[in-house]
């Protein structure tokens, strides 16, 4: 053992911080900056032109300045700053995740600067921050979190060794929300501590992935064994399945009681995906989907709000002015967008001072983007999410051990699945469940949780990282060897 620690000590003394240039990342960030500046210019010019038209004036000068040039500039400088820090730190981390996330965040920032600014206001000391500025603030904090995780996380021991502690913290957060939280739109999701408020279910999704990755990597070989038979079903040993299913059921149960259907769907999908990644057995997925269908059927008959969602999905035009209003307006917005969109700033005419799509900044950013950037814009955005998922899976494939592989796969899949759930809900492909669009929607907790996921992915992608700690075994036997013949 002393030799082992010695070996670790010599390995740890070696790293010298030497700048390492990241050409790919810099090139991609240049494309991102150009795109966002062009987008901002198009947005600013459109807004000015529409305003002049509405006032019946002729435009005398044609400015192409973005609506909030300083905000956009600060965001782009922050992206370059993160890049510079990565270069200086000299770590060999992934070079594509930051530009992809930066592009999505920038599109979100443009959208928030374009929406009516009084949708969200918050006073912070002497300043009154509006929607665009708040989103910028959260984006800057998120970039800071990404940098911190990518550069400071050098060992994953604190994640894998304390999996039950993490699970307990997650459950505690949710329970606190349930007891002390405040109701917004009939769902109790928000926890306020002083001036700070957040949605713990966003954090819980990261914690759930960490727990599942640690648990599955430790017990993977046991879970692949089929020892219990229930009818035609062959299950792994029950004692090894129980803690995982319990953790998942508690999370899911609380979420259902809190009426956070989007998070429930996300947790379930991530659970099944990780189970499949760890064991490679399709029967788990099929069983899970069957369970899901049965559960949905029961929920549909138990809860009125589930019925409303499903009925809206089947026929939003049955009650187009009340229950179906949001869905119908979003569908109109998508239709108005067409193939190329009407242009940033030209869509979503306000009706009597109200936006046509309620909650457009949190649940329905895709409706606004679909109208203003069209089908091509939406496909490009989906492409960006695909890029993030692909990078995550590549990082998983190159990971040193099971835990890191499962963690990377889980973190990227949780982002991808969340984007799919809300996009499909917006497009009326599945019933709408309120959940944020990663990196684009307004909202601090959503941005922070996804930033932690991306930061961890970057840390995991580090080639030349510290080798993982030795696997823990239940009975580490002290050997008393005999001399061999």
């Amino acid at each position, binding site marked *: *053992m002393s*030799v*082992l620690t*010695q*070996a670790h000590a*010599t390995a740890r003394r070696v790293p010298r911080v030497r700048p390492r240039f990241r050409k*790919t990342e810099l*090139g*991609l960030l240049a*494309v*991102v900056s*150009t*795109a966002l500046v*062009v*987008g901002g*210019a*198009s947005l600013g*010019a*459109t807004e000015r*032109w529409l305003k002049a038209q509405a006032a019946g004036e*002729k*435009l005398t000068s044609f400015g*192409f300045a973005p609506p909030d040039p300083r905000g956009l500039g600060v965001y782009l400088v922050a992206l370059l700053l993160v890049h510079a820090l990565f270069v200086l730190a000299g770590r060999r981390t992934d*070079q*594509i995740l930051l*530009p*992809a996330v930066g*592009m999505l965040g920038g599109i979100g920032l443009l959208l928030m600067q374009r929406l009516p600014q009084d949708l969200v206001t918050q006073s912070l000391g002497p300043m009154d921050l509006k929607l665009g500025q708040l989103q910028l603030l959260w984006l800057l904090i998120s970039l800071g979190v990404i940098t911190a995780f990518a550069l400071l996380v050098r060992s994953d021991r604190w994640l894998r060794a304390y999996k039950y502690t993490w699970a307990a913290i997650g459950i505690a957060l949710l329970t606190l929300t349930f007891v002390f939280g405040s109701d917004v739109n009939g769902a109790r999701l928000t926890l306020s501590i002083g001036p700070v408020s957040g949605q713990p279910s966003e954090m819980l999704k990261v914690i759930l992935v960490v727990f599942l990755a640690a648990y599955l990597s430790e017990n*993977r070989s046991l879970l692949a064994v089929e020892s219990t038979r229930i009818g035609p079903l062959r299950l792994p040993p029950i004692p090894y399945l129980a803690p995982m299913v319990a953790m998942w059921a508690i999370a899911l149960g609380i979420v259902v009681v809190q009426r956070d259907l989007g998070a429930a769907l996300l947790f379930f999908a991530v659970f099944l995906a990780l189970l499949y990644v760890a064991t490679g057995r399709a029967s788990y997925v099929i069983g899970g989907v069957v369970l899901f269908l049965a559960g949905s059927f029961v929920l549909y008959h138990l809860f009125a709000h589930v019925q409303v969602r499903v009925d809206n999905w089947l026929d939003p035009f049955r009650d187009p002015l009340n229950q179906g209003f949001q869905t119908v307006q979003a569908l109109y917005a998508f239709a108005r967008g067409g193939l*190329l*969109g009407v*242009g*940033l700033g030209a869509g979503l005419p306000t009706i009597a001072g109200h936006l046509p799509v309620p909650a457009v900044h949190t649940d329905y950013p895709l409706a606004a983007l679909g109208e203003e*950037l*069209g089908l*091509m*814009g939406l496909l*490009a*955005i989906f492409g*960006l999410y695909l*890029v993030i998922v*692909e990078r995550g899976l*590549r990082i998983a494939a*190159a990971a*040193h*051990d*099971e835990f890191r592989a499962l963690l990377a796969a889980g973190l990227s899949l949780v982002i991808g699945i969340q984007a799919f759930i809300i996009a499909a809900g917006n497009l009326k492909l599945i019933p709408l469940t309120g959940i944020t669009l990663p990196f684009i929607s307004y909202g601090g907790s959503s941005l922070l949780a996804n930033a932690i996921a991306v930061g961890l992915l970057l840390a995991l992608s580090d080639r030349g990282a510290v*080798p993982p700690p*030795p*696997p823990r*075994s239940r*009975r*580490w*036997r002290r*050997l008393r*060897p*005999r*001399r*061999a*013949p």
Partner: protein
Amino acid sequence: MSSLSSSSCRAEVDGFVLALWLLRLGFLALIYLFLFVVARVLLRDLRAASRGPAEPGRLVVLASPRGEPPVGASYPLDAVTTLGRDLTNTVVVDDPFASSEHAVLTYRGRVWYVEDRGSTNGTFVNGLQVAAPTAMGFGDQLQIGEVRFRLDRGRS
């Protein structure tokens, strides 16, 4: 005169609208340019990965009380790698507690298996003795005699 100025103004506004239209499509085009560049990088990365690592795995020596094999040494593995004290083994473990033909590592499909070859002191994976052929994941520890190895991914 006034009609002329209004028409020139109209032409200017049309120019403005045209510029706006170009900006709008330019934004979309730039997002697609980004995706295109990323796709090229990803493709290159995947091609490099599909050529696969030259070796299916590596054994890194973590602990070796007698210094043979030395701590920190790493051995690229063949699909069938034998370990033991005898010089005919792929990886020679010169440890008094290792048998001459101690264990064998085999790469079947995409999984490593370790099998004991009737050694005196047994073969241990993560501290548990190996009775039948046992699957090993990357990062698992293998103990032969007093020498401990870690199974790592092969270098690409």
